[in-house]
């Protein structure tokens, strides 16, 4: 059956190529755009490893991410957090991100104020330096910089980095961790940071429970008992991030899916024509005893085959494009084609191919063999 289908598909090469090309574009778009959202997913899961088992606390009403910039958590509130039962440690974090004035893009670095002894707790793992030395408690006027910052600005140990018009000496360059809170950061002593912004409050704090499993209940306690503060558990944050990524990947999938659907219409057209041209042939097969289901299968196999050819082409184009995107992003992100994404793209194409073949196949089945044989 497959070889007959193949021969039929190849009878009208232009037509087949045009129909397959439509599917190719659609599936190519699904995979190329999807690789971007998969890349984001990978990136976020790496970021999430830093916050696992922690509770993030900000001023109530200021939320997470960018909004945390106008959040203020006071020293008194930090003390109260530390005294809650089940709390092992509180990590106060000063956060500042410059952005080009006006509407221009997001900054490629940020300044973070920390107690140097808590850097490991902040990141969820111990990090070393590739050059220079780690920032120590009591260091002033000195900073530890992330690997991406060092690379982008060609910084070496001993250079001067300027943050908010103030100069800092680079004491060390941290190893690459794939956690942007370090790689894209200029980390300074919390005291230096507070001098810099002129406040004794911090933008947020991580609260570390004695037992990581209690992060959720500790979050509830903070939200209920601490007025003026808002807490999010690691799971809350992961859920929020997952929600955003799902929206993005649904959107990107839809764009490609719509195109593939339009391609499916073209396949249907091609198959309708093909059935019409082969009226006599189909009539002859019927007269010789071919069953309806055999004819049906034959036509649907053909349309699925056109779609599959397009899908394989589309997958190759999509994979190639994902490399182009990664290269064009210049390290800012990595587009990833996962097996699941490939399966979704090719599976979707097969569904479209089969659906596109059903109507023409039904027409073929309905034909009266006597009339079909007489047809010219």
């Amino acid at each position, binding site marked *: 059956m497959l070889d007959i289908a193949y021969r039929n598909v190849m009878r009208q090469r232009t037509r087949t190529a045009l129909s397959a090309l439509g599917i190719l574009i659609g599936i190519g*778009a699904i995979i190329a755009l999807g690789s971007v959202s998969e890349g984001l997913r990978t990136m976020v899961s790496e970021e999430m490893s830093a916050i696992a088992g922690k509770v993030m606390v900000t001023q109530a009403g200021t939320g997470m991410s960018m909004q945390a910039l106008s959040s203020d958590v006071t020293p008194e509130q930090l003390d109260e957090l530390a005294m809650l039962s089940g709390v092992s440690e509180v990590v106060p974090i000063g956060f500042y*991100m410059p952005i080009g004035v006006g509407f221009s893009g997001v900054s490629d670095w940020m300044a973070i104020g920390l107690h140097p002894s808590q850097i490991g707790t902040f990141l969820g793992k111990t990090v070393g330096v590739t050059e220079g030395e780690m920032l120590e408690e009591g260091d002033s006027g000195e900073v530890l910089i992330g690997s991406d910052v060092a690379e982008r600005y060609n910084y070496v140990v001993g250079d001067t980095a300027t943050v908010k018009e103030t100069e800092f000496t680079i004491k060390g360059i941290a190893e690459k961790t794939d956690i942007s809170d370090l790689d894209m950061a200029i980390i300074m002593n919390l005291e230096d940071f507070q001098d810099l912004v002129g406040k004794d409050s911090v933008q947020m704090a991580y609260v570390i429970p004695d037992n990581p499993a209690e992060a959720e209940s500790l979050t509830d306690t903070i939200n209920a008992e601490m007025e003026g503060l808002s807490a999010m558990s690691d799971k809350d944050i992961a859920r929020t991030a997952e929600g955003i990524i799902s929206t993005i990947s649904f959107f990107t999938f839809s764009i490609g899916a719509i195109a593939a659907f339009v391609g499916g219409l*073209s396949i249907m057209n091609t198959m309708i024509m093909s059935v019409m041209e082969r009226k006599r042939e189909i009539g002859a097969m019927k007269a010789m005893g071919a069953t309806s289901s055999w004819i049906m299968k034959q036509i649907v196999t053909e349309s699925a085959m056109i779609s599959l050819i397009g899908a394989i082409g589309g997958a190759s184009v999509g994979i190639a494009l994902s490399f182009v995107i990664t290269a064009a992003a210049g390290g800012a992100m990595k587009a990833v084609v996962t097996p699941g994404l490939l399966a979704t793209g090719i599976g979707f194409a097969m569904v479209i191919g089969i659906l596109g073949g059903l109507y023409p196949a039904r027409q073929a089945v309905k034909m009266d063999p006597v009339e079909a044989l007489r047809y010219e």
Partner: protein
Amino acid sequence: MIVDYIFKNIRRQRTRTALTLLGIVIGITTIIALGSFSEGITQYISGALELTAGKIMVTQKGSSGFVTGFAGSDLNDQQLEELKLMDGVKDVTPLGFIISGGGFGSSEVIVGIDPESGTSFVGENIGMHDGRELLSDDTEVAMVGYTKADDDKLELGDFIVIKEVEFEVVGIIEKTDNSNVDGSIMINIKDVQALLKTDTYQVLYVIPYNVDDIQSIADSINGEFEDLNAITSKDMARQAASVTSQIQLYTLGMGAISAVVGGLGIMNTMVMAVMERRKEIGVMKAMGATRLWIMQQFLAESLVISIIGGLLGVLLGWGIVTIAGIAAGGSLPLRVTPSLIGFGMAFAMSLGLLGGAYPSWTAAKLDPVQAISQG
């Protein structure tokens, strides 16, 4: 070209024409729907720019931008006074921003204005829909934009909570059709300073006596004040244009993907039409039809399909955008502009022309003798 003949041919294969048409309709609908999003954002940004027209925005050098509420920009009273004393400067008004909200995307910008000089931020000729304007000794009161009041069912005397502090609504600004004003919450800059625990400002707007001096004043601010950054409304417009044109490129590009596939569908249909009508084409040629005439004939057919598809796609896209806008309750910036419709139609027609080009060329160069004898 005979119009009757074109339509008769298109109607010959109804199913095929319908499927081809549907492809174009879907493609153009996608372009309109996605494009309306970028048009909406463009309009929102140009609304924001309207507020800055004829003014110079001054922030601290190296501080953050609009998106993060100018975090980290600290400007003091002394700098404000010094700017006021510059040649050609009529007035200087400070602004403060607080960004609040529950998470990504749902944030809200609260603008702190100086009631004495700050009305020019909203626009001098804009009055109140209800209640009163902010006064300079007001504290913990707010005025809100028209749509903000409408969306949140706010009336005079209601309270809104900003960073845990309750603010009484004392005024509702009249409808301006500028979503930056209509959706805003404005409070006294002193309240912003209290909430942010600072005595500085984030942005200073410098208003010149003469709008023509705007660039020279901005230049002298940048020259004379080492730690200030002054940009004019023109600079901002230029920055905004580069952002919006990028958004436009992405949305229209993604919308165009399915339209291109629809164009392939036209090509496919026309290839089949030419094949079916080989005999007919042969006869026409034998009777003296020129290559040009035949080519025009087939191009006209594919163009008609694409124009009908384009029109239906524009209508359907418009409908979807309108419904989505209503469903989202005004929180999505969607807008169908004449230029977007023009783009959609032009794109559909170019698909028709490009898709029809190859098949009509094959038709035109058919050898009449062969075409008639082989059928």
